[in-house]
C-alpha cells in the first residue's frame, strides 16, 4: 500500500473525528441525544483499550498465553462495585467540581497543593511512555502496510516519521476540542462522543480482522487449536506456570488493572469528570464489561494462529496485520482500528493531563509569585487555556521523542503494566480517603512518596537495567553489591515476577506508611472539613443548602469582586452573583462578602481553575477566623449525628406508617369477622324461627280444631320435617364448633366407593330430577368415615342447591394420582370470581341474584375445609359463572389394598 493511500485513509479518519466532535458538540439536537445516553458513557470508558489492546494483547498472548486476560478481567470483576464506590466518587466530584484525579486527592487532603503537584507529576511521568508506545504501534502498523515487510524499517529521518504527524494531528484535535473554552465543569461532550465512536470502531475492526484470520486464513477455531496442539507447546499458553505466568502475577495483573481502570488520569477524567449522570453507572457496569469480554474473545486464537504461521520471526504485536496481508481491505480496517485505539488514548490523556498540570502545578506555583499573580489574574481564563495548549503540545512532542529514543526497546505491555503499577500508588490515599476519616494529609503524602520511590526503583529502573540502558549489575547483584537492595528481589524475596514484586512492595509500604503516619498526626481544620465531605457526601449533595460553611470567612466585597471578574469574566460573575442574591433575597450589593457567599463562589472557581488554585486565590483575599481542628471535628460529628438521627427518624416514621397500615387492615378484618358473626347469628336465628313458627302454629291448630285425619297426617309430617330441620341446623353448628376445637379422628378402613354410594342414596328424595353420577375406582383407604361422609353430604347438598331441578347433573369422580382425589362436579350456576375467594369462610353464603333469602347457614363448606384438613388433606374449588363448580378433595391417606 502506497504512502499516499495510507495518508489519505488517515486524513479521512481524522476528518471524521473532527466532524463528529464538532457536530455532536454544537448541534443542540444531537447534543441532547448523546448527553443522556448511558451507552455512550459506557463506550467512552473503553478508551481504556488502547493500542495495547489492539496490538499488544495479541503479542502478550503469543508469549504468555492467558497473561493478557488479566488486564480486562480486572475491570470486569470490579465493575459491580462501580455503583457503590464510583458513584460516591462522582457525587463528591460533582459537588466539589473536581477537575482531575490530582484535584480529587488534593481536595481530600485539605486542598493540599503539594499533593496536587506530586500526583500531577506522576501522571506526566506515566503518560509520556504510554503515549510513545501508541505512536510506536501506529508507526509499525503503517510500515507493515506500506512495505509488506514484517520487520520494522528503522527510520532515521524524524520528519518523515508517520508517528510525528500522527502526534501533531492528535495534538491539534485535543487543542481544538479540549481547550476551546473554559467550562467550569470541564466537560467536553464532542470529545466524549468521539471516544464512544472510536470504541465501536475498535471493536468492529478487531472482530472483523479476527474473523477473517480464523475463517479466511484458517478453517475455524477448531482448525487453529488442533494445529496448535499438534505443533506447539500448549501448556505454557493455557495454564499458569511456576516460572513464567504464575498465580501471583495473574492476581496482581487483575488488581492493578482494576485500579488503573479508574485511577489513570484519562480514566478518571472520562469516568468521573465527563460523567453526566450517576444513573449511567448502572448500565455501564455491565455494558463495559461485555465490551471488554468481546474485544478479548479472539485474542488467543489470533495469537496462536500467528505463532503457527510465523513462529518467532515476526513481531507478535502485529499479527493482526501480518496474518491478513492478502486481504488489503482488512489491512485498512486494522489501520483504522489502530488509529481509533491510539488516538482515543492520546487525545484524552493529553487533555486530562493538561488540565491536571495547569490546575495543580502551574497555576498554584505561578500564583505564589506576586508578579505572575497579577499577570495571570488579569485574564485568567485565557492564560489558563494558553498554558494547557502548550502542555498538550509539549506532552506529545516529548512522547514522540521518548519513542524515538527508547521505545524500540520496550514492549507495549511492559510499559503499560509499569504505568498501572505507578498509578496504583494513588489507590491507598483515595480508598482510605473515602472510608477512613482519620487519614491525614501527612500520612497520605508520606505513603505516596514512599510508594512512588519504591515503584520507581523496582520497576522503571529495574527495567532499564534489564535492558542494558542502566548498569545491569544492579539487578544481578544489587546496587553496589548489596544484594538485599536488589530492585528485583528486595530483602531477598525472590521468585516473583518483577511486576508483582515491585507492585507488592510499593503498594504495601505505601499503605502501611499512610496508616501509621495518619495515626500519629492530626488533621488540620481544612482537612477536617474536606474529609467530612468525602466520607459523608450524602450530608452535602442531598441537602438544599449544601454550602453551609463551617469555617467563618469574610472579605471586602469590592476587592473580592474585582479579583473574580478577572478570573471568571464580568458576565459570568454577574450571573453567579445575581443567582446568589436572588435566592437569598438580597437587593443591594453588600459591603462584606460573608462565608456563605465566599464558599459559593469558591465552588465555581474550583471548577474553572482547580481546587487548590481556587483556594490560593481566595486565601489572598479572605480573612479567616482561626478555627481549631478539634472544634470542627465536634461540630461535624454533631451535624453527622443530627443527620443520622434524622435518617433514623425517617425510617422509624416509615415503620410507623407501615404498622398503622397493618393495624388498620387487621381492624378491618376484625370488623368484617364481627359483621359476619352477626350475620351468622341473625341467619341462624332466622333459620330457627321459620320451622318453629310452623311447628307452633300447626300444633296449636291440632289442639284447638277438629282436624280431619288426612290433614292431621299432613300436619304431623310437617311438624316432623321442621323439627328435623331445626335438629340438622343445630347439629351443623355443633359440628363446626367441634371440628374446630378437636382434631379427633377415628381412623378406619373405608371402602371409598361404597361410602360415596351410600351417601348418594341418602339424597334420593332431595335430588329431585337431577342426576347424580359416580365414577369410582376400587379403593380402600384409611380415614375417618364420619367426617368424610359429612364432607360429601355438604358438597352434594350444595351442588343440589345450586343446580336446576331439570338439568342438574352432579358427578363424583375418584382418582388416584399422587394423592387420593375426589371430585364433586356440578353444572349449576357457578360462583363468580370475586366470591370464589370467600366460599370456604365460616358463615359466608354466596349471594344469589334473585334470592335475597339465604338458604343454609354458610357453614357447610367451612366444615368441609376443617374436616379435610384434620384428615390431612386439601380441598380446592374451581368454578365458572353459568357453567358449574368443581370441588376437589385431595387426601394424603394410606391406601390399603
Amino acid at each position: 500500500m502506497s504512502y499516499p493511500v495510507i495518508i489519505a485513509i488517515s486524513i479521512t479518519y481524522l476528518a471524521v473525528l473532527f466532524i463528529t466532535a464538532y457536530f455532536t458538540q454544537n448541534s443542540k439536537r444531537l447534543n441532547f441525544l448523546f448527553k443522556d445516553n448511558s451507552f455512550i458513557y459506557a463506550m467512552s470508558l473503553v478508551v481504556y483499550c488502547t493500542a495495547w489492546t489492539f496490538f499488544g494483547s495479541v503479542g502478550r498472548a503469543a508469549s504468555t498465553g492467558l497473561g493478557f486476560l488479566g488486564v480486562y478481567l480486572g475491570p470486569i470483576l470490579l465493575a459491580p462495585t462501580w455503583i457503590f464506590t464510583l458513584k460516591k466518587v462522582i457525587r463528591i466530584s460533582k459537588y466539589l467540581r473536581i477537575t482531575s484525579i490530582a484535584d480529587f486527592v488534593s481536595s481530600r487532603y485539605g486542598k493540599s497543593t503539594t499533593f496536587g503537584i506530586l500526583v500531577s507529576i506522576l501522571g506526566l511521568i506515566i503518560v509520556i511512555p504510554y503515549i510513545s508506545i501508541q505512536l510506536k504501534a501506529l508507526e509499525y502498523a503503517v510500515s507493515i502496510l506500506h512495505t509488506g515487510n514484517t520487520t520494522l524499517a528503522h527510520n532515521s529521518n524524524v520528519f518523515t516519521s508517520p508517528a510525528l504527524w500522527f502526534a501533531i494531528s492528535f495534538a491539534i484535535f485535543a487543542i481544538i476540542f479540549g481547550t476551546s473554552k473554559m467550562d467550569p465543569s470541564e466537560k467536553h461532550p464532542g470529545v466524549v462522543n468521539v471516544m464512544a465512536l472510536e470504541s465501536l470502531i475498535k471493536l468492529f475492526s478487531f472482530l472483523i480482522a479476527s474473523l477473517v484470520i480464523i475463517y479466511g486464513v484458517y478453517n475455524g477455531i477448531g482448525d487453529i487449536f488442533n494445529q496448535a496442539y499438534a505443533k506447539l507447546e500448549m501448556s505454557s499458553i493455557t495454564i499458569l506456570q511456576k516460572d513464567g505466568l504464575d498465580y501471583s502475577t495473574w492476581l496482581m495483573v487483575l488488581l492493578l488493572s482494576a485500579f488503573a481502570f479508574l485511577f489513570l488520569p484519562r480514566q478518571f477524567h472520562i469516568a468521573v469528570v465527563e460523567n453526566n449522570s450517576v444513573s449511567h453507572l448502572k448500565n455501564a457496569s455491565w455494558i463495559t464489561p461485555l465490551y471488554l469480554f468481546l474485544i478479548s474473545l479472539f485474542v488467543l486464537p489470533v495469537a496462536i494462529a500467528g505463532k503457527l504461521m510465523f513462529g518467532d520471526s515476526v513481531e507478535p504485536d502485529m499479527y493482526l496485520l501480518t496474518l491478513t496481508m492478502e486481504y488489503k481491505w482488512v489491512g485498512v480496517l486494522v489501520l483504522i482500528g489502530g488509529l481509533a485505539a491510539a488516538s482515543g488514548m492520546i487525545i484524552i490523556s493529553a487533555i486530562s493531563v493538561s488540565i491536571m498540570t495547569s490546575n495543580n502545578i502551574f497555576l498554584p506555583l505561578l500564583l505564589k509569585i506576586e508578579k505572575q499573580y497579577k499577570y495571570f489574574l488579569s485574564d485568567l481564563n485565557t492564560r489558563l487555556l494558553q498554558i494547557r495548549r502548550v502542555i498538550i503540545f509539549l506532552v506529545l512532542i516529548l512522547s514522540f521523542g521518548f519513542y524515538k529514543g527508547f521505545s524500540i526497546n520496550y514492549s507495549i505491555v511492559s510499559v503499560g503494566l509499569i504505568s498501572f503499577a505507578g498509578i496504583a500508588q494513588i489507590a491507598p490515599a483515595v480508598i482510605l480517603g473515602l472510608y477512613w476519616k482519620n487519614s491525614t494529609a501527612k500520612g497520605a503524602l508520606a505513603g505516596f512518596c514512599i510508594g512512588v520511590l519504591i515503584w520507581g526503583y523496582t520497576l522503571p529502573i529495574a527495567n532499564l537495567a534489564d535492558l542494558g540502558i542502566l548498569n545491569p549489575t544492579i539487578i544481578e547483584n544489587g546496587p553496589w553489591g548489596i544484594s538485599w537492595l536488589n530492585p528485583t528481589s528486595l530483602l531477598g524475596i525472590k521468585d516473583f515476577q518483577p511486576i508483582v514484586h515491585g507492585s507488592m512492595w510499593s503498594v504495601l509500604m505505601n499503605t502501611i506508611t499512610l496508616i501509621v503516619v495518619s495515626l500519629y498526626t492530626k488533621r488540620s481544620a481544612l482537612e477536617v472539613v474536606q474529609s467530612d465531605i468525602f466520607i459523608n457526601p450524602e450530608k452535602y449533595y442531598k441537602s438544599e443548602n449544601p454550602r453551609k460553611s463551617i469555617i467563618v470567612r469574610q472579605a471586602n466585597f469590592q476587592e473580592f469582586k474585582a479579583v473574580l471578574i478577572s478570573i471568571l469574566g464580568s458576565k459570568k460573575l454577574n450571573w453567579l452573583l445575581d443567582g446568589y442574591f436572588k435566592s437569598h433575597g438580597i437587593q443591594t450589593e453588600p459591603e462584606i462578602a460573608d462565608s456563605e457567599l465566599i464558599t459559593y463562589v469558591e465552588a465555581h472557581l474550583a471548577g474553572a481553575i482547580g481546587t487548590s488554585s481556587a483556594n490560593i486565590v481566595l486565601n489572598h483575599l479572605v480573612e479567616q477566623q482561626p478555627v481549631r481542628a478539634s472544634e470542627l471535628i465536634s461540630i461535624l460529628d454533631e451535624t453527622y449525628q443530627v443527620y443520622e438521627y434524622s435518617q433514623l427518624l425517617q425510617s422509624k416514621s416509615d415503620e410507623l406508617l407501615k404498622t398503622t397500615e397493618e393495624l388498620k387492615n387487621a381492624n378491618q378484618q376484625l370488623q368484617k369477622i364481627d359483621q359476619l358473626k352477626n350475620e351468622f347469628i341473625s341467619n341462624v336465628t332466622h333459620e330457627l324461627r321459620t320451622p318453629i313458627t310452623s311447628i307452633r302454629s300447626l300444633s296449636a291448630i291440632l289442639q284447638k280444631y277438629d282436624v280431619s285425619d288426612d290433614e292431621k297426617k299432613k300436619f304431623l309430617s310437617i311438624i316432623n320435617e321442621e323439627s328435623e330441620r331445626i335438629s340438622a341446623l343445630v347439629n351443623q353448628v355443633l359440628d363446626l364448633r367441634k371440628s374446630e376445637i378437636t382434631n379427633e379422628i377415628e381412623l378406619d378402613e373405608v371402602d371409598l366407593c361404597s361410602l360415596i354410594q351410600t351417601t348418594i342414596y341418602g339424597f334420593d328424595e332431595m335430588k329431585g330430577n337431577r342426576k347424580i353420577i359416580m365414577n369410582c375406582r376400587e379403593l380402600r383407604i384409611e380415614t375417618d368415615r364420619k367426617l368424610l361422609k359429612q364432607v360429601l353430604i355438604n358438597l352434594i347438598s350444595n351442588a343440589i342447591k345450586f343446580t336446576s331441578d331439570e338439568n342438574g347433573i352432579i358427578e363424583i369422580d375418584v382418582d388416584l394420582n399422587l394423592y387420593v382425589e375426589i371430585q364433586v362436579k356440578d353444572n349449576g350456576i357457578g360462583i363468580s370470581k370475586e366470591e370464589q375467594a370467600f366460599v370456604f369462610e365460616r358463615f359466608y353464603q354466596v349471594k344469589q341474584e334473585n334470592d335475597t333469602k339465604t338458604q343454609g347457614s354458610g357453614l357447610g363448606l367451612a366444615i368441609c375445609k376443617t374436616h379435610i384438613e384434620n384428615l390431612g388433606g386439601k380441598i380446592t374449588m374451581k368454578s365458572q359463572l353459568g357453567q358449574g363448580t368443581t370441588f376437589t378433595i385431595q387426601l394424603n391417606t394410606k391406601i390399603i389394598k
Partner: protein
Amino acid sequence: MSVDSSKKILIVDDEENILISLEYLLKAEGFDVAKAKNGKEAIDQFSTYRPHVILMDVMMPVMDGVEAAKAIRSLDADSQTSIIFLTAKGTTDDRRVGYLVGADDYVVKPFDNEIILNKIKELS
C-alpha cells in the same frame, strides 16, 4: 266465632308450611283465604282478589314484603285493605319501616295463632 263470612284474607309467605297452617287456621275461623308466595304474586293477587286483610311476610324472594306493601298502598288509594306484617325480625326499626310503609299492624314470628286471629278481628 261469629265473623263476617265474606272477609277475604290474603296470606303471603315463601314458606309453604306456614301458608298451610295459616290457611287452615283462617278457613277454620270462617275466613276466605288466598295465598301468594312472594311480593310480586301478592300484588297480582291483590288486584284480582281484593282482600280485606293481607298477612304479609317481610323476607321473601323476588320482591319482599315492604316493597309489595308500598306498591299495594299506591294501588289502594282509599286504604280499604289492611296490611299486617309477619316477620322473624322484631327490632324497633323494622316496625317503624313497616308503619311508614302503611302497615296497620305487626306480628313477630313465631306467632301465637290467637294473636293473629285477634288482630284480624280488630281490623274489621
